[in-house]
């Protein structure tokens, strides 16, 4: 089992997220099954950490635990240095799932401010604030349009804007582009890196796309099949800002090959 040992930008700044020996069980037809086994990880304040693993490795369970939706059976969860119990973690991170979950009866703008409405914020200022962000998200002119009239990529961007406007530093992304076709996915990844370059959030990204993980993340953790446990940690040495051309570089291929090997998808590669 690997433990992350990364040094943080400013000494003394607590990690955005740290999990210590987190395990989780769930019940299936009367049987108690171990979903996550002793997972320890931490994310620095401006770091993107990707979590890859086969289906059923408990990746999504991990995000549910961090966001406060699913109870861990043991271990501790700290957000920005503060140890929080399950219920307390609700409303401490911004969680985005594969499905955009846009409410069909709200316009794009109203969907974007959903988290603010939920927190009881004043309607007008939050809408004005969100309106200014539409340009940045490539959504200018679509403020008052219903989700049914938007393309898949645009819907996902509205969902991402809603996640950002929730106002939490820590972003939990669960296969955020998984529902998009390959071309749309690549363009959303490009867009996300450039967005992140300006506004660096700590991100925990769950994906089963190794390319997505290498291209977006500073560090990639490999989760084993159930019970999920971290079997490999890959520090991504690619420079930032990231460009799509990097996928032709030898480092990119090396990272990719090592991760695929760690996932058992290709034979062991010689360390170079």
């Amino acid at each position, binding site marked *: 089992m690997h433990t992350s040992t990364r040094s943080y930008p400013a000494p003394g700044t607590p990690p955005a997220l740290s999990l210590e020996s987190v395990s989780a069980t769930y019940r299936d037809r009367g049987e108690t099954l171990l979903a996550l086994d002793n997972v320890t990880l931490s994310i620095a304040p401006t770091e993107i950490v990707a979590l890859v693993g086969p289906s059923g490795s408990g990746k999504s369970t991990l995000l549910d635990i961090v*966001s406060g939706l699913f109870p861990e059976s043991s271990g501790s969860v700290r957000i920005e240095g503060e140890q929080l119990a399950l219920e307390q973690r609700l409303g401490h991170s911004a969680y985005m799932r594969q499905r955009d979950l846009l409410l069909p009866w709200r316009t794009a703008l109203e969907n974007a401010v*959903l988290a603010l409405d939920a927190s009881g914020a004043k309607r007008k200022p939050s809408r004005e604030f969100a309106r200014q962000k539409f340009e940045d998200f490539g959504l200018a002119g679509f403020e008052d349009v219903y989700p049914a009239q938007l393309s898949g990529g645009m819907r996902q961007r509205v969902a991402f804007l809603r996640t950002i406007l929730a106002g939490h530093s820590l972003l939990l992304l669960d296969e955020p582009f998984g529902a998009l076709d390959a071309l749309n996915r690549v363009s959303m990844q490009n867009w996300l890196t450039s967005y992140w370059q300006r506004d660096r959030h700590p991100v925990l990204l769950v994906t089963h796309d190794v390319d997505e993980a290498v291209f977006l993340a500073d560090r990639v953790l490999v989760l084993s099949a159930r019970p999920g446990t971290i079997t490999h940690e890959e520090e991504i040495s690619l420079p930032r800002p990231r460009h799509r051309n990097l996928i032709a570089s030898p480092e990119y291929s090396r990272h990719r090959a090592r991760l695929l090997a760690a996932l058992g998808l290709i034979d062991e590669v010689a360390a170079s």
Partner: protein
Amino acid sequence: MKHRLLRWLLPVCILLAGFICWEIAVRVADTPRWMLPPPSAILRSFRDDRALLLANARVTLLEVVLGFAYALVAGVLTGMAIASSRLLERAIYPIVIASQTIPMVALAPLLLIWFGYGLTPKIIVTALVCFFPIAVSTVDGLRAVDRETLQMMRTFGAGPWMRFRLVSVPAALPSLFSGIRIAITFSVIGAVFGELVGASEGLGYLMQRAAAQFQTARVFAALFILAGMGVGLFALATLAERLLLPWRRFLIEDRENEE
């Protein structure tokens, strides 16, 4: 636009053609008036009995509107209670369903005994008829609320009230409106049925009395007013749905484009 006009024009044309055939058939066969009056006689009855028809229509409409309103409130509250907890569902749902198996024919005379000949028993019959589709559609609407969306709301720090107000209520409205449309067509039937059992005013009462006197044209006139009332109320419900749920149009348009 052209499309919509055509949608209205078509049934109107068919109805008109039907009336013309009816008129000709009655005249050719020389059917006695008391058996089947021609549409022209019914039109005459509309003109001559205007005051009588209007006064009785007003009573029936009042019964329908009040009965429906009570059913709406009771149905939505019951539906919310059933959808809110398994325990309440087990306690209430079987009773709600069983209540539907009691024939109105058997219940209406009882209501007459208890509440007399006034408006109350008609309002109760109307409300009972409307209650079930409204309660069931509320339950269905609230149950179909997307679980993942509710979880997302929790991660936003939204409490139960906010989740209910921002997600469950708007998500359940389309289903509720389906129930309302069904209930509204039943409501007229309910009110007339209540009147037939025992009344001193209302279109159902008027029809019964006119039939006893073989004033068949008047029976038909009352019948057409009732049909118009049902259609009008249905249109009103559809209009309310369109105004309250403007986003539904886009979903429907999408589906039509795909077809």
